[in-house]
């Protein structure tokens, strides 16, 4: 083994990689709205770094500060993506409307009315399941960081 990452950490990594592939694959390739793709990359990569760091002692002070810094940015990215996912994106709604307009209002209108949006509870459950590896990594990182914060403050 080249790292100290436990098997269950590996499972979280694999599930996270699958979620990353699913989410980034679903985002259409194009040059507009690149910020969202970058936010998504941060959202997945930073918790990955935190999860890897979880299995190491991080005895040096600089490493502890770096870990806390990465955790802070990762939590911001997670909060940003969660708010975006739960509240929905006005721009994407516009895109959908434009697409419906292009592909023929009449045929789409019927389908859209049948294809209703899920309720907020289902949205939260879906988001939590899809992003559970990221949330688990952040939870573990917070658990590791709390004693560091207490020592440093």
């Amino acid at each position, binding site marked *: 083994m080249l790292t100290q990452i436990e*098997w269950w950490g590996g499972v979280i*990594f694999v599930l996270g990689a699958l979620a990353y592939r699913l989410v980034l694959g679903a985002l259409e390739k*194009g*040059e507009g709205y690149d910020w969202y793709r970058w936010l998504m990359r941060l959202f997945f990569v930073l918790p990955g770094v935190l999860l890897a760091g979880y299995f190491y002692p991080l005895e040096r002070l600089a490493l502890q500060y770096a870990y806390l810094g990465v955790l802070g940015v990762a939590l911001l990215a997670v909060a940003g993506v969660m708010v975006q996912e739960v509240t929905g994106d006005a721009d994407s709604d516009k895109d959908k409307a*434009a697409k419906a307009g292009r592909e023929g209002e009449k045929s789409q209108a019927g389908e859209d009315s049948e294809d209703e949006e899920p309720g907020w509870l289902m949205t939260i459950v879906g988001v939590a399941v899809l992003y559970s590896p990221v949330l688990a990594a952040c939870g573990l990182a917070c658990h590791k960081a709390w004693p560091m914060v207490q020592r440093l403050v």
Partner: protein
Amino acid sequence: MSQNAHTLHLFFEDSIRLKYAQLVYQYIAEGNTAEATRWAAKLGVALADLWDAEWFNQQVTAAPGYLQLNFDTGTSDPLPLSPLVALFGHGLQAAVLDVFYDQVGETQRMYFDKGQWVPRSYFLALYPHLQTIVEPAHDPDDGDEPGERAAADAHDPAKPLSVARLLKDEAKKRKEAQEAAEAFVEIAKAMGKNGVKNTMDGVIGVVVLGSALKGLLHAAVFTVVAVLLFKGLWLWLGLGLVLAIALPLYYATRTHSELKGDGGDGDGDTDGEAAAVGS
């Protein structure tokens, strides 16, 4: 002979560069390449980027504020994006490309703004006064609402996309299609030499086998990486074994259904299969 008829409307940032571009294309239309090259140099671009010698039936119409080019290309020629890429770096502000595919009798219209391929609605929101220039006038006899025909003809990107990127993507797609077609021909030839009677089934078999091998390779890479990075040797070996069975089956089934058109077409539709392999 079938051809694709193009109408390209070019709107420049200033009248000087509009004039330069007009001179370039007027000299091209007259067949005076030397003068066209000279004016292209004044514009700051190479003539080869502005015009392809394979294009024909060229006509230039100069109007106050814009330039209209009409020309034809072969049906298998790519979209004429290179002039747009070149001109957007040298004073072009907006453009609309209208292509009539006379083989199928369909029109496709693409809208460009500041080096980006944009949706029609976006373009018309920026330049509402250009609608009457770039889109055909509404004909009440058609029975359509005003703008309905133009909206149907619009070929819009899902999101704004740079013309340079579009050109690169198109070139890549053409190269891949050509390579796939060449590979298909090679495989078919090899099978013919080896006495395989139904070449199409043979080619499909080879492609399906290739995708199964790709699945096996993915499983192997996953297992090696997981074993090296994470503790739990037996867990990762077991998972790798499961993937080594599941991934080849999944990839092979997916490729087979793609080639066979979900199995609904039967064996008779060999042309469709060839097109699928070729693409």
